[in-house]
């Protein structure tokens, strides 16, 4: 692919993932030279409706999000979900735990009907996503790597191993050794063990690995004297959508 046209879009999210692209610092100039950015919600005023690659941040949380997503998907040849909200539904899914109607009432009171909120879902619940740059926020290196791989016609290398690997490469003291708990053994790596490196347990913001050993994780947390609620909280923060989906199965 030679100089692809790229659109950067934001659905329901904080905008931080798009900012990560602007935060590329040393690589920003090279990045915008390598691709032709035709739309960038957080960064440019121009807008074009012709693009090959769509980088989409945020989850689908309103009917309007869904309409926009469907439109983007009808134009783009390749869709890359960037960030936790887009990839797993992220924090926004916590709303689903209350029940969307109840959450609307809680926040908007008698004006709740003005809001077209629907149950939050990751974008791949509606459209085919080719690649995920997961995480909250996603790593800049991974976003660049995916785009770069596409230009070169390569398959991007996205880790499907647990965070523990990165901890061990860094020589970290395991969070469990210090009395904390960590989702690392079932969480997808790629962040270079950002949280455990700061002695804070991993919250699985990149979602689980493809085939997580959930029972072993339950046993592990259990051994550290945690209740089922604690266990669920570990998954909730970024993966409530997945959990509700599993429950309904």
């Amino acid at each position, binding site marked *: 692919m030679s100089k692809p046209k790229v659109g950067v879009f934001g659905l329901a999210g904080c905008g931080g993932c798009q900012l990560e692209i602007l935060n590329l610092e040393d*690589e920003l100039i*090279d*990045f915008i*030279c*390598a691709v032709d950015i035709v739309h960038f919600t957080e960064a440019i005023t121009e807008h074009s409706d012709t693009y090959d690659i769509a980088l989409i941040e945020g989850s689908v949380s309103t009917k309007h999000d869904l309409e926009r997503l469907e439109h983007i998907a009808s134009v783009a040849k390749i869709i890359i979900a960037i960030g936790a909200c887009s990839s797993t539904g992220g924090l926004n899914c916590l709303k689903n735990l209350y029940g969307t109607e109840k959450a609307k009432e809680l926040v908007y009171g008698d004006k709740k009907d003005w809001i077209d909120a629907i149950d939050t879902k990751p974008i791949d619940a509606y459209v085919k996503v080719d690649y995920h740059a997961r995480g909250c926020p996603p790593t800049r290196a991974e976003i*660049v790597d995916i785009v*770069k791989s596409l*230009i*070169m016609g390569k398959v991007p*290398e996205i880790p*499907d*191993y*647990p965070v*523990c*690997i990165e*901890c*061990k*490469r*860094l*020589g*970290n*003291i*395991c969070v*469990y*050794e*210090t009395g904390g708990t960590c989702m*690392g*053994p*079932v969480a997808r790596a790629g962040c270079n063990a950002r949280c455990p490196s700061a002695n804070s347990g991993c919250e699985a913001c990149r979602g689980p*690995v*493809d*085939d*997580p*050993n959930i*029972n*072993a*994780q339950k*046993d*592990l947390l259990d051994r550290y004297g945690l209740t089922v609620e604690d266990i669920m909280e570990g998954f909730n923060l970024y993966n409530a959508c997945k959990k509700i989906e599993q429950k309904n199965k």
Partner: protein
Amino acid sequence: MLYKILDKKDFKDFVNNLISAYEVTAPKKISQALHDFFPIKSYEEMDLSYKRTTLPPAKKMLFPSNEALASYTVGNNIEVKSLNESKEQLLFGVGAWDINGMNFLDRIFSTDFIDENYMEKRKKLKVIGIDAEPSDANFASSVGSEFAKEGFDLFLSDIGDKYFVRIGTAAGAEIASKFGDFLDASDVDYSAYDRQMDLYKNKFNVNVNLDNFFENFEIVYGKKDLWEKLAKSCFSCGSCNLVCPTCFCFNVRDDIKIDLAGGIKSRQWDSCMISNYGLVAGGHNFRPDEANRLKQRYRCKLKTFVEKFGQYSCVGCGRCVEACLAKINIYEDINAVKEEVSI
């Protein structure tokens, strides 16, 4: 081999002299229960009373977890430059099992193919070993690695108010004469050393019997139920591999610059326990589940190199046991194999 004596009152000076001449890497306390090896600037930073260390020191110095191997430019002018960083270093206070682990890596990285990046660093590394305290999971004496015959320049054994020192190389002899007050060993010292060695062997709590393992393993190799049971809790997290002093697998990745004008090839520690390790082009995975991967790991540790090098590639350091959050335990599983055969 030459034998010498170093009085404990001269020990601190010896270490400080080494520090002024070399970049010395030695054990440091990093938490209540853990130590790890880091470069030190003074004698006081060092703590030789370690039991558990997070990573095997020689592996992390000679085969770093992330290492650039080559840089290149593409286009009309293709240029490849090998990247190989090495410097004179001294590893101090390393236990026998870890020296034996390093000896294994030396063989791996110089047999069939000379790995320049490893070997350059190895050539510039001086090693001073010590009879370290085995951790609770250490079973080195069961695999014959509680004693180092080679791979060190000096090796220190505590015989009371002095160290009995084995000098393993010419460089070791030079270090001894240049940096310390080493005396000749007397008959009394030799017998004290023999006694110490007998006592030392008894410090290993875990004893595991590997007799017939070589044959027994084949008998149970196809027993799916057994391996599924043993690997049931495995997270496929690779910790066991990465903390192992003899695991040498690595993955090479390409970081091409975004302007596509060039890039860097680097290697990272890899693991045969993660699900993608056996994934090949076309999407087939020849070790698709935990059970398959665990028995492959045991084969590699306890059989493959018996055939290839005439030795186990497990030195019994116990780090994989300590690192595994699923409590998967190599010596218990050696026993499980034995039990399975005897049923």
